[in-house]
Structures are given as structure tokens and as C-alpha cells.
């Protein structure tokens, strides 16, 4: 147990407790009308943290657009600092991990701003089109690029309806050790997977909260007791381009 962190031991314990309570029965979670996710928790399958991601979870974000202010760019800055990417003032080739969008109702002049990043789709088109299997969805819903096998064809950039992906055009040095990225591969928001795996929330969520806005919320969409699931159950929320049926993990409130 020596290299298993306390936190992981704790998570493991609560997981085992949950599984004990759930018994060997089948739990079924309704994600959205028409989409039913089946999970089969089995106490015998309770795993140690060194055995990897928990497929019963689905990580997601809820963005309260009313709380997001126009002059603030902190989530973008936090992401860039955390993951080591920089904007070079060239939108044609710049990284697109997260960006602030501004929308305006031309009739009333009403404006809103909010961040958009990879929406961590449950049915991700980027994964569908990837010829190598480099684009993939983790068991807990986080969509990633495996840069070890990405050939840089950029099909996924074409397929993503949210323009959430970008390509690294120049050789890089001194990347963050937890966020490897390099020339010739595609990248996008990882939902700060390195932080999620150690029990933290993404850097943007942290920063937005410390700056007093609290517009971003992170959590497990599958856990009805999580704050994010409760909020989703209480208030009207939206997925961007819900008509595409991608079942995004990033949801918007007051949009």
C-alpha cells in the first residue's frame, strides 16, 4: 500500500462502501431521455487505485453563464499555466484548449460570454473518425488524444463540431511533465485528467472559484448525490448543439 496515496485509499474505501450498499444488484442511471447507462457494480470488482479509472463515473462540467463576466479570462489563463500552452497571437495555428466566446442577440443587443472547451461527448465524432485509435474516450467519459499513436492527420479537428481541437505546428521543449504535447499531434482539453486522477478538480474550475466567480462546477454526472447532478436535476441546463445528439459532458446553465 505504500505508494497508494491516502486520498486514493479513502476514495477506494468509499467506493467499496458504496458497492457494499449497492450489493451485487444492477444500478441503472438515466443520463438523458432515451439514453440509459447500465452499470454493474460488483463488490468483487472493487479495485485498488493502481487499477485505474472507474467506469461507473462520468466526469462533467456545468458552466453557469450568468456568473461568467465579460472582462474575465481567468479560466483560459489557468488552463494555459496548468498545461503549458501559449497563445502566439496567430489564431490559425494557436492552441484551442479553452476559449471565451461572446454571443449577442442582434434584436435585443443582449450579450453573454462563457468558456468553451472540449465537451467530452459521450458519442464523440472525433473518436469515430480517427483512423488510428489515438482519439479515445476513457471509461470515465474523458475524451483524450493518445499522442503516442496520433499521426497528425487532423480528421478529428474536422469532425469536432465545437472546434475544440488544435494541432501543434512547432517543436516544443520544457512541456509540463503531466501534460506532454508535441509537434505533429492534435491536442484538446483533457479535463485536467492528471488532476482528476489524483482527486482534484480541473484548473479552470479552481481558478474561477478562487477569483470569486464560481461559474464552473466539476463532478460526476452519474452520481445522483453529486452537486453537479443535483444542480442538473433542479435547474434548466443546456448542451451546446444538443441537436447533434453527442450527449456532451459539459453543460451550460442560463445560456
Amino acid at each position, binding site marked *: 500500500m505504500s*505508494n497508494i*496515496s*491516502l*486520498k486514493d*485509499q*479513502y476514495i477506494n*474505501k*468509499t467506493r467499496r462502501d458504496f458497492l457494499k450498499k449497492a450489493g451485487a444488484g444492477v444500478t441503472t442511471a438515466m443520463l438523458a431521455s432515451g439514453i440509459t447507462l447500465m452499470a454493474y457494480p460488483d463488490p468483487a470488482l472493487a479495485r485498488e487505485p*493502481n*487499477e*485505474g*479509472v472507474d467506469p461507473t463515473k462520468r466526469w462533467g462540467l456545468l458552466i453557469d453563464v450568468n456568473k461568467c463576466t465579460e472582462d474575465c479570462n481567468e479560466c483560459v489563463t489557468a488552463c494555459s*499555466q*496548468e498545461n503549458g500552452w501559449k497563445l502566439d497571437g496567430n489564431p490559425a495555428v494557436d492552441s484551442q484548449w479553452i476559449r471565451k466566446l461572446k454571443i449577442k442577440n442582434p434584436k435585443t443587443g443582449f450579450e453573454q460570454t462563457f468558456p468553451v472547451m472540449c465537451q467530452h461527448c459521450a458519442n464523440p465524432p472525433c473518436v469515430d473518425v480517427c483512423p488510428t485509435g489515438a482519439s*479515445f474516450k*476513457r*471509461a*470515465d467519459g474523458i475524451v*483524450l488524444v*493518445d*499522442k*503516442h499513436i496520433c499521426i497528425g492527420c487532423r480528421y478529428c479537428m474536422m469532425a469536432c463540431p465545437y472546434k475544440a481541437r488544435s494541432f501543434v505546428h512547432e*517543436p*516544443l*521543449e*520544457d*512541456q*509540463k*511533465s*503531466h501534460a*506532454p*504535447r*508535441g*509537434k*505533429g*499531434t492534435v491536442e484538446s482539453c483533457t479535463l485536467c*485528467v*492528471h*488532476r482528476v*486522477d*489524483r*482527486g*482534484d*478538480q480541473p*484548473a479552470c474550475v*479552481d481558478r474561477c*472559484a478562487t477569483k470569486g466567480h464560481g461559474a464552473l462546477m466539476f463532478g460526476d454526472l452519474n452520481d445522483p448525490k453529486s452537486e453537479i447532478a443535483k444542480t442538473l436535476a433542479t435547474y434548466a441546463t443546456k448542451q451546446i448543439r444538443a441537436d447533434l445528439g453527442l450527449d456532451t459532458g459539459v453543460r451550460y446553465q442560463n445560456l
Partner: protein
Amino acid sequence: MFAKLKQVLSVAAKSVAMVAVALLISSATSHAEEKKAQAGYPSWGPQFTLPKSDNKCVHDPDFAKTGKCVRDTAFMRRNHMELLKHKRDRTMRQGIRTKDSSLQNCINCHVTKDKADKAIKVSNPKHFCASCHLFVAVKLDCFECHRSTPETPKGSASIPKIPAHSNLLAANTDEAKNLKNFLSNHAKEGVTQ
């Protein structure tokens, strides 16, 4: 006759090269072994560097005595790439982030410093990985994406301190109470993260 001689010579040359490579590629060794290895160094070999024996090893508290890294040196010479590849898939796909066979940990331990006490990058032929890979002319792709020097622990990139669930602990919920109890019990037992 000539063909035969040529063949013998080329086999001999190959085995000399293999022995040289085996000598040159090394994971952690103790200080005494380090000196021995350097004494037996062919002068035409690469400028290769060993981790300092006073480095603390995450895998083995007896590292300074045994000089044994993740696995023994002979195994590492031949199979480090297999370990790394296996681990890379497990981390990438399954989120398994144990320290064993993690490239980040290789880099943190096998660090070579320049005169200004700064860790050198893989572009420098004295870098631990570069020294052998340059010599055997095997292209290293790892550092196209991964950094080749240890990262200064700073900001959120540093190893997390308990409680990582700071936001959870701050909440006044049953879950927060459970976590606090759990942490304080373990603190009594002297377990640290």
C-alpha cells in the same frame, strides 16, 4: 577465405559493440560501481552519465546500497523500452499513475547537471538517454512530447499535498466528515502521502 575472415571480423565487431553498449547503458549503480563503470569505459564511447548515488530512489529505500533501479541493471538495459511502453498505455488508457516504470520518474532520478547545476536537456549529448541513444543511433521519440528534465515543483504542477480534496473538506457534509476522520486516523498511524 576473405569472405570467411570478413564474417568473423564483423561478428567480432558486433559483439564488441554489444559489450560496449551493455557497459554504457546503465540504470542506477552505487558510487563504487559508478567509478568502476567509468574506469572500464572505452575512450571512443559516448559521454554517458550515471545518476548520482546520493539521489533518493522512489523505488528502493536501499538504493544507495544495492544500486538497483526499477529492475536490475541487466534487465533495464534490454527492456526499459518495454516497461515504458507498457506503462504508457496503462497510464494513458486506464489512468494508472503508479510510480513504477513512469517516464517522469526516470527523468527525475537520471538527471545530469551542467556546471551551473542546471539539468541538461536531451539535446545535450550528455543527457542520460541521449548519450546511449546517440551512440547506437536509435532515434528517441519520447521527448518530442515529454520534457527531458525534472520539473521544478511549483504551483499546481507540484505533487499534491493532502488534502487534495480541499473543496470537499471545506464542505460541511457527511462525506467531508468521513474524509477528515479517515485522514486523522491515518495521521495517528504515521502514514503520509
